């Protein structure tokens, strides 16, 4: 029954096939080197002292007792980092970043702003000694009242986290009273009042979502060596070695050319590994000791001190006329940024009505600091909470007007020439194609089976539908393709491979050159060995770095044609290159395969290497529809997922297995977010479930197979039609599951997670 379907519209030789990934063997044999696997002669081990308070002023730090412990080689505090003013830097996905905040988040200078905030760090000859030394550092705090909830933090009498944060308005106007609201914006399209006046049915609802973590299995790690000539080498697993280099350089106050970041294999990121937490600390510990220093986080540190994604408060209002056409939509989003400004509320606002053709809309957003860890992006950052609100309001509207939810999406779906709020007009997109594929899917037409009666009549089943939109991103990327004499190509690129991107990039290069994917040797290299490449984020690698590989291959091809022309002594225009063969257009005798030519390069004028640097525009925008069947146990409140089908327009699946894998993984993170994951804080702001046992991400036992349908509506902005895949699938599940729970037991849940307790409470309230 479980199935994965690919709806292809264009076939290629290599693109669209399923070769074994190039780095696979090393990863199934334990040979692959992840960040924590590095070992160096003389290596010291570092540990970080973290604040026990959610909000406090640091009065003094005394490290003398720690330094006296045998085996301790150095202790550092923020005093060992340069004082950074309020200068602002433009650093990729995180947008504008105040450097002092970045530095203070590595090592707090004046105040600690969340429990777990780094205060000092130790380097010692063993991790155990470093741990013991932490207990010997004496920090004197003046404890301050904390604020944890976004709505509380927005109140006028709320404790203020930053004396230098003033609300920035849309116009760039800055208020003159310090506030926890870092920014406030309103985006509008059409005439929203007139639109609501035309509506026959209006539904407005409130939502709350909690903070959740990306939950990558590999904890953060960093190893640094500060060389005697003041050059620094950093080994770490991150989503972008260049990004870590640039940010570390700014925090350390040195030029980027002084730092080489060597990307180790990365054990999951999902947006959470773009921020330097340990790298600058490892560097200054190495400077003090003259030895390489490695730091790795424990799991509780990962939960408490790295960036989860924002919780928030949302309100969505949608009006439709009698025919079911949306006439207006409004939204209010307040997202927790954590300890420093910079939630993803702006992106949530861009995506909130993305799947719909909305003529009149108004979205208001607030970025709010609270005494919790600084948030970081998490897979489609900002969009899942927004979709949870919109897609459940739409479900209610469909019920009220008696319309099938997929019919509603066909009538109101985003289409070419339409415009999402705050965005450009849509070019070719696959929103309606995806809805149609969902309608035609056997899952949608198969009636729900009755629950197995073993547990009496306490179980109820329901089906839910939800859609979603994700912007997808591009960025700078570089690639170099060196032709080897044995007919293979060494592909040098700069995008850390989190989920099979080496294969996906090699395949795009191979497609151009007409060679096998296996004849390409992709390598992710350090910051001194390839041109700048932006982070592995925004579902952008197959798009942007894929494009760089495509262009580098074109460069190889051009040079090969020239070389053949020279060997044959004919004009280059007479040489054709197709399917990996160079040939003369009219003389069939003149023919060389790629392999034959590769073998002759060194003796016919020298080696050939292709290169490309790109920063392409033309990202596609991704759309998805999810169908889910749930079973609700009305006695315990537990919700089980019985069946899940995720349909998504991916443009073109370069390697369908990894596209399916991205979709399945994203869906399951969404299921965890929907049903159990959340940060539990006590009233002192201490996370009380900072272990995998208590945070409780989905296990294999919680899940069925996840069916996928890959819809391919080629993106005209990419040579192979790629849209970007990875983030979209986490957007619809929460709404789809909420809608399914309603279908099963008639309760509408509007807070996440929809845990057994909340289900039971809602059932009791309903009188069940």
């Amino acid at each position, binding site marked *: 029954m479980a199935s994965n379907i690919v709806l292809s519209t264009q076939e290629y030789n290599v693109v669209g096939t399923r070769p074994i990934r190039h780095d696979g063997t090393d990863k199934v*044999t334990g040979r692959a080197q992840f960040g924590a696997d590095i070992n160096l002669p003389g290596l010291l081990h570092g540990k970080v002292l973290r604040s026990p308070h959610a909000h406090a002023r640091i009065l003094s730090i005394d490290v003398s007792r720690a330094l006296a412990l045998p085996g301790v080689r150095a202790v550092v505090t923020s005093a060992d980092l340069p004082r950074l003013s309020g200068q602002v830097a433009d650093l990729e996905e995180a947008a504008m970043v105040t450097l002092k905040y970045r530095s203070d988040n590595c090592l707090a200078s004046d105040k600690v702003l969340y429990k777990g905030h780094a205060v000092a760090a130790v380097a010692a000859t063993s991790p155990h000694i470093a741990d013991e030394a932490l207990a010997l550092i004496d920090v004197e705090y003046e404890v301050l009242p904390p604020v944890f909830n976004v709505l509380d933090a927005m109140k006028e009498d709320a404790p203020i986290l930053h004396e230098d944060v003033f609300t920035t308005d849309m116009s760039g106007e800055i208020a003159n009273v310090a506030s926890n609201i870092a920014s406030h914006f309103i985006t509008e399209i059409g005439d929203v009042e007139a639109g609501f006046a035309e509506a026959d049915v209006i539904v407005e609802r409130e939502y709350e979502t909690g903070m959740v973590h990306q939950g990558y299995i590999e904890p953060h790690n960093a190893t640094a060596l500060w060389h005697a000539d003041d050059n620094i080498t950093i080994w770490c697993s991150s989503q972008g070695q260049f990004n870590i280099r640039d940010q570390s350089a700014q925090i350390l106050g040195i030029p980027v050319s002084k730092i080489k970041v060597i990307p180790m294999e990365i*054990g999951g990121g999902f947006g959470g590994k773009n921020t330097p937490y340990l790298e600058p600390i490892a560097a200054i510990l190495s400077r003090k000791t003259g030895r390489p220093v490695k730091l790795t986080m424990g799991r509780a540190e990962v939960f408490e001190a790295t960036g989860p994604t924002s919780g928030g408060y949302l309100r969505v209002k949608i009006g439709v006329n009698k025919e079911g056409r949306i006439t207006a939509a409004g939204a209010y989003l307040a997202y927790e940024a954590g300890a420093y400004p910079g939630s993803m509320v702006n992106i949530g606002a861009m995506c909130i009505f993305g799947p719909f053709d909305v003529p009149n809309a108004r979205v208001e957003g607030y970025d709010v600091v609270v005494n919790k860890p600084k948030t970081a992006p998490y897979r489609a950052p900002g969009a899942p909470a927004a979709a949870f609100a919109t897609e459940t309001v739409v479900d209610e509207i469909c019920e009220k007007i008696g319309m099938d939810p997929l019919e509603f999406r066909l009538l109101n779906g985003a289409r070419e020439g339409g415009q999402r709020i705050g965005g450009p007009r849509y070019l070719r997109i696959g929103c309606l194609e995806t809805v149609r594929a969902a309608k035609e899917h056997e899952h949608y037409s198969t009636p729900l089976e009755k629950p197995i009666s073993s547990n009496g009549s306490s179980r109820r089943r329901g089906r839910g539908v939800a859609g979603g939109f994700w912007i997808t991103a591009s960025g700078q990327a570089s690639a170099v393709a060196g032709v080897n004499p044995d007919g293979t190509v060494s592909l040098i690129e700069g995008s850390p491979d989190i989920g099979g991107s080496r294969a996906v990039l090699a395949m795009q290069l191979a497609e151009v050159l007409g060679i096998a994917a296996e004849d390409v040797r992709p390598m992710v290299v350090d910051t001194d060995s390839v041109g700048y490449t932006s982070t592995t984020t925004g579902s952008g690698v197959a798009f942007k770095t894929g494009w760089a590989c495509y262009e580098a291959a074109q460069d190889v091809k051009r040079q090969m044609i020239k070389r053949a022309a020279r060997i044959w002594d004919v004009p280059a225009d007479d040489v054709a290159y197709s399917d990996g063969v160079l040939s003369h257009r009219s003389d069939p005798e003149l023919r060389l395969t790629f392999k034959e030519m590769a073998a002759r390069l060194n003796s016919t004028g020298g080696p050939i290497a292709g290169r490309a640097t790109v920063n392409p525009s033309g990202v596609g925008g991704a759309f998805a529809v999810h169908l889910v069947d749930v079973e609700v146990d009305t006695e315990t409140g537990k919700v089980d997922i019985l069946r899940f089908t995720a349909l998504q327009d991916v443009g073109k699946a370069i390697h369908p297995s990894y596209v399916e894998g991205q979709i*399945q993984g994203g*869906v399951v993170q969404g299921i965890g977010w929907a049903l159990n994951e959340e940060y539990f804080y006590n009233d002192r702001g201490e996370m009380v479930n900072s272990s995998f046992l208590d945070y409780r*991400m989905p296990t294999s036992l919680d899940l069925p197979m996840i069916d996928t349908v890959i819809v391919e509506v080629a993106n005209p902005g990419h040579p192979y039609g790629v849209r970007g895949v990875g983030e979209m699938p986490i957007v619809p599940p929460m709404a789809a599951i909420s809608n399914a729970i309603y279908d099963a037991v008639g309760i509408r849940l509007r807070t996440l997670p929809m845990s057994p307790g909340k289900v039971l409470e809602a059932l009791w309230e309903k009188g069940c």
Partner: protein
Amino acid sequence: MPGKVHVQSNINGEDTDFLCEPRQSLLEVLRDVLSLTGTKEGCNDGNCGACTVIMDGRIVDSCCVLGVEAQGKQLTTIEGIASADGLHPIQQAFLENASLQCGICTPGFIVAVKALLDREPKPTEQRVRHWLAGNLCRCTGYDKIVRAVLDASEKIQASPR
């Protein structure tokens, strides 16, 4: 701090002596003392399975075993799964089914699956899901991992080594 303890065990078929502090976990010993870094740390408290090894035929989370407890024990780590002739069918099935994305959980899963198929060569999907419930994967949603296990089970049946 007491001195180091001399421990003798058999790791991946080789008699291995090592020195470790009594407070060092088996995971630390494998990774930091013996440079067997294929065994991964995800949580260090028994909740993710990334550190799974086989000890005297049973799977254990090596982060929850002390190094000194390996005295006299037979251990299999991820480094001991493939043979000189090549990958184990489980490893091959993981590759062919695209069962890894980032790959940090993969060694733990493969070791756990080895222990399962050694004792139950033909598990059902539900049994596989149950057996692997102690191994967390955040990337794949488990679908392709479960498929790989069922696939490997069939392959091993078809051509026993």
